[in-house]
């Protein structure tokens, strides 16, 4: 990983120096980017957010810039570290709006930081296409912040996808109907567990083990042992990055080996596949992409070439797609006027690397990936709320 990062750094420097030379005189489009480089969410931001900012700027500039009403404008990205602190996110967005006079600002990273920044985006009329905000209050939020759009979906849909996949596997006779469910006791895990419980019940599943564990738990073996002793047909964990790794490793060791094994955030990270190798085969996780589609393959190749790291199989592509939407809206509106661009976003459909995007009445992308599965070293989407390219989920056959 280290070598890759150094390579990425070197690549970034080359790009930066290549760009500053001849282009400095030309008129630039200032794009703000705020996200965590330090603090609890920094790990996720380093995988999903920052490389895509870099890649998108690279792609745009390599193509000669964004076409704004006939003139091609290069983009210049101004990055700020919000230290995973909502107060800092607000301050940084404010700074971009008033001090740097950014033409547009990319949506921040993570649910809480996005929502904290929403009033500032709203006040200055910046369109805000979020890529990593998961909320069941999309209706309230988009009512209050009309310029706020959601690409990644809501908790109910994410949980619903899991229940659909499990139901299908049960109908195919691959699993029974007992489920062990655990969640990390933080906003994300709590919200998803609450959304999942009634849906499991409605689908006729029996939750045989249901518990939470605190964020930062260093030994998850009691959780896994408890789940194992309930002898479930399916294991579902609404987990965060460090514990997604911990739960998986512990399940291998404790011999918790149900036909359906699901962990949430970070299952779709390339580092998950790299760490568990063949054992990851058949693991279900939050997210997914149309991994066999040319759009994603092409994107993944460029991502690796430009940033030195592979994209994840969930929010990376939507993050890039959200920047694409902004870009297409600027070109479509033919101006850098924020109100015109915001209006264009509201009234148009977009064609992105994750496929066509249309907004529902709550400014939300109603068709999103919900569940993916590691199959043959790739994390493929197996369930979505209307995306093309889903493959069938297969039962997991042990950890070997």
């Amino acid at each position, binding site marked *: 990983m280290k070598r890759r990062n150094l390579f990425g750094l070197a690549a970034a420097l080359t790009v930066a120096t290549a760009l500053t030379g001849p282009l400095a005189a030309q008129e630039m489009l200032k794009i703000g980017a705020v996200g965590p480089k330090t603090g609890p969410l920094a790990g996720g931001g380093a995988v999903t957010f920052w490389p895509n900012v870099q890649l998108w700027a690279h792609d745009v500039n390599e193509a000669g810039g964004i076409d704004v009403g006939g003139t091609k404008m290069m983009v210049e990205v101004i990055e700020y570290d919000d230290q995973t602190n909502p107060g800092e996110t607000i301050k940084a967005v404010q700074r971009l709006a008033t001090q740097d006079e950014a033409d547009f600002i990319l949506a921040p990273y993570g649910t809480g930081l996005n929502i904290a920044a929403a009033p500032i985006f709203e006040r200055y009329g910046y369109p805000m296409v979020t890529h990593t905000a998961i909320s*069941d*209050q999309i209706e309230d939020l988009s009512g209050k912040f009309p310029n706020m759009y959601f690409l990644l979906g809501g908790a109910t849909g994410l949980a619903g996808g899991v229940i659909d996949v499990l139901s299908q596997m049960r109908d195919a006779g691959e699993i029974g109907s007992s489920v062990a469910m655990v969640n990390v006791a933080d906003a994300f895990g*709590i919200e998803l567990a609450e959304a999942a419980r009634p849906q499991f019940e409605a689908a006729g599943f029996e939750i045989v083990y249901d518990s939470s564990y605190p964020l930062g738990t260093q030994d998850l073996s009691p959780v896994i042992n408890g789940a194992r002793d309930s002898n479930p047909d399916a294991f579902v964990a609404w987990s965060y990055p460090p514990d997604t790794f911990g739960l998986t490793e512990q399940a291998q060791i404790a011999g918790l080996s149900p036909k359906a094994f699901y962990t949430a955030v970070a299952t779709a990270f390339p580092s998950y596949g790299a760490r568990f190798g063949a054992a990851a085969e058949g693991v279900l996780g939050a997210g997914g992409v149309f991994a066999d589609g040319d759009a994603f393959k092409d994107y993944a190749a460029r991502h690796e070439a430009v940033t030195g790291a592979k994209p994840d199989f969930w929010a990376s592509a939507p993050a890039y797609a959200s920047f694409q939407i902004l870009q297409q809206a600027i070109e479509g509106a033919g101006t850098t006027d924020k109100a015109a661009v915001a209006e264009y976003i509201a009234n148009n459909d977009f064609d992105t690397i994750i496929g066509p995007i249309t907004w529902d009445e709550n400014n939300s992308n109603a068709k999103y990936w919900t569940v993916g599965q590691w199959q043959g070293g790739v994390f493929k989407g197996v369930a979505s709320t209307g995306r093309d390219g889903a493959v069938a989920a297969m039962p997991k056959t042990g950890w070997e």
Partner: protein
Amino acid sequence: MSLAKRDWQSITLSAVLLAVAACLPLTGDAYMLSIGITIAMYAVLATSWALFSGPTHFISLATAAFFGLGTYTTAIGIENGLNYWVTLPIAAILGAVLAALVGLATLRLSGVYFVIFTLGLAELVRQVVTWGQNVSGQKGLYVLTDITEVHIYLQLLVLGGIVYLTGWAIGRSRLGFALRIIGDDEEVARHSGINTSRAKILLFMVSGATAAVVGSMLAPRYIYIEPALAFTPMLSFLVVIMALLGGTGRLWGPLVGVIPFTLLWEAISASFPNQTTLLLGLSFLVIVYLLPRGFVGLIESGKRKMREREAFA
């Protein structure tokens, strides 16, 4: 209680400064306002922290516990149909009660044991709150209100004014006198008939209630309330650092720590987005080595020099 000329002077000066600060939103500069909120928030937290920790020399790392408690009180209150303004006094009371309990529990602790006790306590409160949220079936907490940055800023200023008045009144009262003696030598204080426990607990309650109210006031700004953000231990540390950088010997000490520190932080974040943490750390080190007695020490020695020069002239 009669006020001397000096007291009137300082009260007038403080009132004028507060009035000037209150004019900030009138400039219409939203960027300055967002910095102003950061300054006001840390100034109130650090000053109320120093009310207790300054005279007693007890370093508390529990600020995040009170702050988070306030944030959650407002979030849960609004979720259940309470008026925002009602949640503020509730937060203050809860904060004071928690502080009283902590105060009672920590009477026998001293030095680093007290420091880490408060740290552990903050984590305990956070764990209990998240667990409660999980088992109660409460989904994500959203504080969607019409409160704007200007409102939050003015509220913080008012709270700041109250904290200052309280601090000033305590300084003049028997309680303040008692605290100073406790800080110098607790043994002596006890022998001279001062109820040291009562004095310490009262002060800690003031400090805890203030931090809880600050948390309440900021809840509408964060909108989405997560335990990891509301109870972040970083907050406790930053408050201590800023107060100590300023100096805790004077009521205005923390303020002269908070202002330059926040501006420095802002300058570093704005200019070096990739090395923010690194440079922030380096500037701590520089400040500690160059200003061993905080900004208060710097200002006071500056004053002394001026006076000496005047005397010679």
